[in-house]
């Protein structure tokens, strides 16, 4: 969660800053008036509470910022003292510190001080005002940007004063943008036009709406309108570039998702020729394993097995240790899905190697059974899988948002393709796999235990599906229907790439992902999906071998 991180960074930065100024709460330099004002604002229940909160910013007190940040994060608590008065306090580690006196005490019945979105908005405005003076340039820019968008000219002198002493280039840019936005409403047309030009030069996306509004406004001079039109054109052409870059990135990431879900299938279907309709459920096994690992790291979970509740105790970890659950969940998902896959291969599929159509049907039956088992064991609802902090948040480069999870999935796709490639080309198992897939009879004559190789190959393919599931848990639902959403797509990816060709699968995954994202940006998602699918069908009808058809004599028969 970006907001949470920002908030933490924010609180941390503030505390550091306060430490420097020897204003730390723990040391409790009393500033009775400020404290009283704070308490009044917190306890105010009327319509004027937001105003009172924003007024706090003017005190310029560092303590105010710290308390407000605590409040926003839910760490400002209230305790009813024996005489009935409300005692506000903050948590400093395990200690409770009274807000009115700054001394430690033991609360009796603490309760979070509630916030509504209105109060939180006010807190945020106040914090933004305070943050303009923050030592962290990123926080400063963000705060300045937000103040700018309020278009409240009262802040203008403060921002201009700030501009004089600001040295950080990023913050200077934010200041110029904020000031220019405010100057748009300036009475002097010259200032206004200069601001318009400035915003255009800066390619300021947030001000696009304002500038567009100016073009049609009756209150603007013709010169200002003309300038606004120019700036709008500049910003819009920049926006187009941002969108194009974004679409490429999104296509790459969507393609990686496809690749992650289809790679397992490329092994079981492409190499072994087994149509595993339960492939989607193998992904669900991986995703549910991630869920279980998460809960074992956390507070445990209760599974219901045919009416009997089975409680799995948790380790009650918190913080970074808890966050690391995902790192453990990845191999666990692989193993669990591989085990289920091996069981499936031994129990059903091995009887059907010569009857591919029937393996399709039998595995569909299995997929129905697995889906319902998920419902019975984990409940019919989706389950919660939270994203660890290192997978939430994003980089922003030139206004293109690159989510951590998306970047990660691209990296992950590359990693598993590499591992698969290594396994198939550099290990003896890989050699056996390729031998068995090319000529089962011959391999078996040469002493390869084909049964075992089949089992392991299928296990490996299923394990890859499990890995895919672990990653999907970071992007979407974890529920009984998880597999169904991906099964058609993954089959299409493998077939378009050319069955039995891993390079083909990679190319088709990236290709389909990019086409899909591009279509989504020009039409709507539904039409995009329909067009993509129809194109794939038509492509396959005309070129049944896919992108990289396997040209061997044995397959042409």
């Amino acid at each position, binding site marked *: 969660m970006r907001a949470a991180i920002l908030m933490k960074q924010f609180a941390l930065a503030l505390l550091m800053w306060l430490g420097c100024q020897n204003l730390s709460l723990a040391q409790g330099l009393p500033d009775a008036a400020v404290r009283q004002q704070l308490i009044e604002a917190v306890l105010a229940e009327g319509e004027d509470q937001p105003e009172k909160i924003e007024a706090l910013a003017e005190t310029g007190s560092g303590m105010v910022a710290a308390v407000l940040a605590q409040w926003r994060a839910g760490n400002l608590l209230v305790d009813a003292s024996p005489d009935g008065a409300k005692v506000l306090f903050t948590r400093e580690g395990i200690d409770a510190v009274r807000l009115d006196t700054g001394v430690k005490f033991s609360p009796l019945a603490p309760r979070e001080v509630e916030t509504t979105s209105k109060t939180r908005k006010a807190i945020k405005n106040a914090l933004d005002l305070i943050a303009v003076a923050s030592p962290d340039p990123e926080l400063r820019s963000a705060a300045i940007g937000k103040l700018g968008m309020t278009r409240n000219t009262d802040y203008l002198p403060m921002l201009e004063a700030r501009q004089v002493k600001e040295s950080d280039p990023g913050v200077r840019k934010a200041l110029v943008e904020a000031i220019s936005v405010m100057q748009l409403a300036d009475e002097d047309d010259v200032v206004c036009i200069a601001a318009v030009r400035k915003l255009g030069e800066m390619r300021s996306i947030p001000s696009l709406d304002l500038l567009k509004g100016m073009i049609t406004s009756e209150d603007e001079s013709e010169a200002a309108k003309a300038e606004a039109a120019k700036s709008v054109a500049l910003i819009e052409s920049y926006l187009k570039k941002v969108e194009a870059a974004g679409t490429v990135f999104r296509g790459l990431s969507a393609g990686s998702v496809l690749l992650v879900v289809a790679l397992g299938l490329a092994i079981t279907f492409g190499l072994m020729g087994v149509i595993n309709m339960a492939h989607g459920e193998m992904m669900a096994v991986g995703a549910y394993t991630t869920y279980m690992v998460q809960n074992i790291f956390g507070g445990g979970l209760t599974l219901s097995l045919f009416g009997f509740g089975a409680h799995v105790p948790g380790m009650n970890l918190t913080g970074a240790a808890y966050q690391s659950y995902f790192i453990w969940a990845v191999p666990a998902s692989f193993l669990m899905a591989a085990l289920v896959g091996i069981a499936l291969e031994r129990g059903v599929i091995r009887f059907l190697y010569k009857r591919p159509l029937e393996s399709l049907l039998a595995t569909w039956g299995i997929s129905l059974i697995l889906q319902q088992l998920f419902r019975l064991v984990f409940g019919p609802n989706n389950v919660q899988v939270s994203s660890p902090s290192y997978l939430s948040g994003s980089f922003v480069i030139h206004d293109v948002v690159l989510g951590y999870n998306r970047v990660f999935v691209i990296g992950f796709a590359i990693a598993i393709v590499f591992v698969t490639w290594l396994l198939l080309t550099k290990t003896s198992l890989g050699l056996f796999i390729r031998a068995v897939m090319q000529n089962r009879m011959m391999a078996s004559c040469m002493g390869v235990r084909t049964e075992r190789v089949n089992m392991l190959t299928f296990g490996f393919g299923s394990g890859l599906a499990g890995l895919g599931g672990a990653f999907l848990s970071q992007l979407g639902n974890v529920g009984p229907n998880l597999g169904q959403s991906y099964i058609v797509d993954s089959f299409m990816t493998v077939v378009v790439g050319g069955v039995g060709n891993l390079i083909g699968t990679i190319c088709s995954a990236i290709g389909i992902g990019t086409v899909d994202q591009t279509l989504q940006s020009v039409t709507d998602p539904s039409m995009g999906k329909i067009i993509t699918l129809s194109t794939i069908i038509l492509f396959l009808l005309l070129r049944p071998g896919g992108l990289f058809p396997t*040209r*061997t*004599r044995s397959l*042409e*028969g």
Partner: protein
Amino acid sequence: MSSQVILAAEGVNKAFDGFKAINDLNFYLDEGELRTVIGPNGAGKSTFLDLITGRTRLDSGKITFGTGVGEEITSKKEYEIYRMGIGRKFQTPSVFTEHTVFDNILLGLKGHRGVFHTLFAKLSSEDSDRIEDVLKIVGLFGKRNDQAGSLAHGQKQWLEIGMLLAQDAKLLLVDEPAAGMTDEETHKTGELLLSLAGKHSIIVIEHDMVFVRQIAKKVTVLHQGHVLCEGTVDDVQNDPEVRSVYLGRGKH
């Protein structure tokens, strides 16, 4: 170039993923001739048959069929080539296992093969007679009502040849007819093929040199997709080049 040539392949090339399966192949077959083609594994024998029957498209060159000028067959579909009178028996016996022996021959019987024709086709007594004749030739008359799947391996091979006969094919392409047969069956097959030569032109692909000796008048040796030499069995066996590439490595 005799005017009696029925099949001519000139400058034929075919590559799979860079591997040249057929390399500048020139091959001529006379009408009524029984030709045996031999060659080591991967010499392109089966690929050659695939090219003639349209199962695989050639990269360059041309194949013509028919006496006189000959009709080019390189761009025709399988069933069109078949309808010109080229029938093929596959390496592994390929009959309709769920049909009776009689029906197998019926499906191969010469005649109209359109969708609507088959819907309303009636079995005439002429057709019945023809089928029975064919069954007698291949020695399966007694099994005419059995499921083809229940036949022994050799019998399936004969049934497949029977299907080609029913079609009245001018050119029979027979891929390893003796594979997996007992000596006695092999001999019988040889006699069957010999009896058919003359009425039909035949290309036989074979490994079994005993069998080749039995049937072959003229042998073509393929090596790396190219005709290495042609001649009688003895000529071929005495050819030093052939010995080095083929016989020298031991047969089969």
